[in-house]
């Protein structure tokens, strides 16, 4: 297939502008304080555009625009709103390569993934919520012969969305599609590591959206995110990120008494029972791939299967095969379609991963493969690359308990089913888990006993719309990628109607 030209280079399928302002009320608006910040690509470490450095003044303007748009948007018929979501999906589909290369350049992930997963999933997401909205119905309850309770879905109003950097366009879509379907107007703040690719999307779809329904404020969390999350005019906040910021957002929400959905990550176990290796066949091959998925997206996935639990009967051979499979992962230029692992998203992310590899070694965990930064040379020498790394250790070590958010898996063995469940659930989090077994009863029981919101059985890292995604325990509140999320963006209006001509007889 070859390598895509870098944005801005001759022959590239996408151009970034040299500067992006805030997108407010359907147009680009210069930041109130006039500040900008540089946005580097993690592929080379070099800046490629600059972004508006938003402040509270910009947030207020964006909320003004959203407030003036929301009543019209919320009153549009479901068919009209769904139609716009379908048009967005179609526009994205026609520009798939452009969006895929833009996201890869900004985030550092292989373009192979953005072409095959991130952007197609985002497109399908808009379609799913268009369909979910059209199929949504209110309910009615007949309370007695003369009294009927009607339940209507009504929008919340202006909602705030704070987007993570690991899937800049897909994660924005996970939040935008249900919010818009539900009739809300949005003020969205992308992560400061990946603030630009959403603007490539906006350029493609801005004419489809009524002015003010989607507003994008760029900037730093402390300067723009906090005034947004704490603003009393915001009716709901959606956040994906880590626990301390999640708590802070919940704290601000408690001051304004508004709902929040938070997705805060995990330390997901990937469990391989003995019978996985009952035959050296296609299923065994699939299970090995399932193990190796810890390196997908450079491990920068909230559900990274970063703890592998392998039953003792197959531990030695399965782990050896998994190490060999991991060594086959192809590193390289993220815009090369053959590259399977790209760059970590930022320098501080790289440093954090290396600090965890260090504490893993200090705690006595053994490195089975990897363990180092990678120097790819040439123009990539300033980028942030890490070898896929497998540690062998035990579940009390910090590398088994903390989300490293890098291509690092920690492997341990278990003796029996109870041992597996005990280890799997010995974690603060409960976002994802994987179960691999040929015995369907074992797989089912394990899937039910693991305290996590998403358990993949004999597969992993699939994120289709129509399957609910969200956390147990400290992994958060709410369920995305499903019509359940429409409920998180709507409130219930009950009309309690009495059709009797007679007084109640009380006074």
């Amino acid at each position, binding site marked *: 297939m070859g390598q895509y030209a870098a944005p801005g280079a001759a022959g590239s399928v996408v151009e970034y502008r040299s500067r992006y302002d805030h997108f407010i009320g359907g147009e680009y608006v210069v930041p109130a304080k006039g500040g900008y910040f540089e946005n580097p690509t993690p592929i080379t470490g070099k800046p490629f555009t600059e972004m508006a450095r938003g402040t509270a003044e910009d947030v207020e303007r964006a909320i003004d625009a959203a407030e003036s748009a929301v009543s019209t948007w919320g009153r549009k018929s479901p068919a009209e709103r769904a139609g716009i979501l379908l048009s967005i999906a179609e526009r994205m589909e026609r520009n798939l390569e452009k969006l895929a290369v833009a996201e890869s350049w900004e985030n550092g992930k292989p373009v192979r993934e953005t072409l095959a997963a991130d952007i197609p999933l985002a497109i399908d997401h808009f379609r799913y919520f268009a369909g979910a909205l059209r199929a949504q119905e209110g309910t009615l309850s007949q309370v007695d012969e003369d009294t009927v309770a009607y339940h209507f879905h009504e929008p919340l109003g202006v909602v705030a969305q704070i987007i993570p950097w690991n899937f800049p366009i897909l994660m924005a879509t996970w939040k935008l599609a249900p919010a818009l379907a539900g009739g809300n107007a949005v003020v969205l703040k992308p992560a400061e590591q990946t603030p630009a690719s959403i603007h490539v999307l906006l350029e493609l779809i801005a004419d489809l959206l009524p002015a003010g329904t989607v507003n994008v404020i760029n900037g730093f969390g402390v300067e723009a995110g906090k005034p947004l999350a704490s603003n009393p005019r915001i009716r709901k906040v959606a956040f994906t*990120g*880590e626990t301390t910021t*999640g708590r802070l957002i919940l704290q601000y929400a408690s001051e304004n008494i508004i709902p929040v959905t938070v997705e805060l*990550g995990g330390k997901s176990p990937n469990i391989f029972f003995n019978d996985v290796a009952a035959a050296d066949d296609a299923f065994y091959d699939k299970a090995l791939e399932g193990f190796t998925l810890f390196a997908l997206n450079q491990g920068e996935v909230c559900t990274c299967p970063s703890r592998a639990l392998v039953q003792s009967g197959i531990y030695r051979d399965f782990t050896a095969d998994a190490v060999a499979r991991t060594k086959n992962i192809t590193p390289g230029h993220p815009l090369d379609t053959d590259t399977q692992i790209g760059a970590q998203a930022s320098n501080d992310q790289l*440093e954090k991963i290396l600090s965890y590899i260090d504490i893993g070694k200090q705690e006595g965990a053994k490195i089975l493969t990897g363990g180092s930064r990678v120097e790819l040379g040439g123009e990539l020498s300033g980028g942030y690359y890490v070898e896929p790394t497998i540690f062998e250790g035990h579940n009390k070590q910090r590398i088994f*308990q903390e989300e490293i958010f890098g291509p690092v898996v920690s492997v341990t063995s278990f003796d029996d089913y109870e041992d597996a469940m005990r280890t799997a659930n010995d974690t603060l989090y409960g976002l994802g888990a994987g179960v691999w077994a040929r015995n369907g009863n074992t797989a089912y029981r394990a899937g039910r006993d693991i305290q996590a919101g998403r358990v993949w059985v004999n597969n992993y890292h699939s994120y289709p719309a129509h399957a609910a995604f969200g956390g147990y325990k*400290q*992994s958060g509140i709410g369920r995305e990628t499903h019509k359940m999320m429409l409920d998180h963006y709507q409130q219930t209006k009950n009309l309690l109607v009495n059709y009797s001509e007679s007084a109640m007889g009380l006074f």
Partner: protein
Amino acid sequence: MNTPAPQRVAVTDQAAELIRRLVEQHGHVMFHQSGGCCDGSSPMCYPHGEFRTGVNDVHLGALEIEGVAEGVEVWMSGPQFEYWRHTHLTIDVVSGRGSGFSLEAPEGVRFLLRSRLLTSEELAGLET
């Protein structure tokens, strides 16, 4: 001479210098150690009192920094501490661009934890 009491947290000179600057801009500050995804597993720095600690948070210590009047408190959630209590934590700083609401992000740098195992003598002193 008495040996100094063992500590759970420390700060590098570079991080101390950054904290001094942040205190000049924002007043007294605090840290809360994050868990979870994206920018998690990193120390978050806030104006003191901005992040409300609760009964389930653990006070790991206060960083004494020259030129900063009060010790800078470092906190972590209690359940997280149970998995971390055997390690000593040093707050460092690296270049980069964290998100979250931590105060240093606009400076183009990010606080980072470096860890080492506490010695048995330190643990004995800390856990009594």
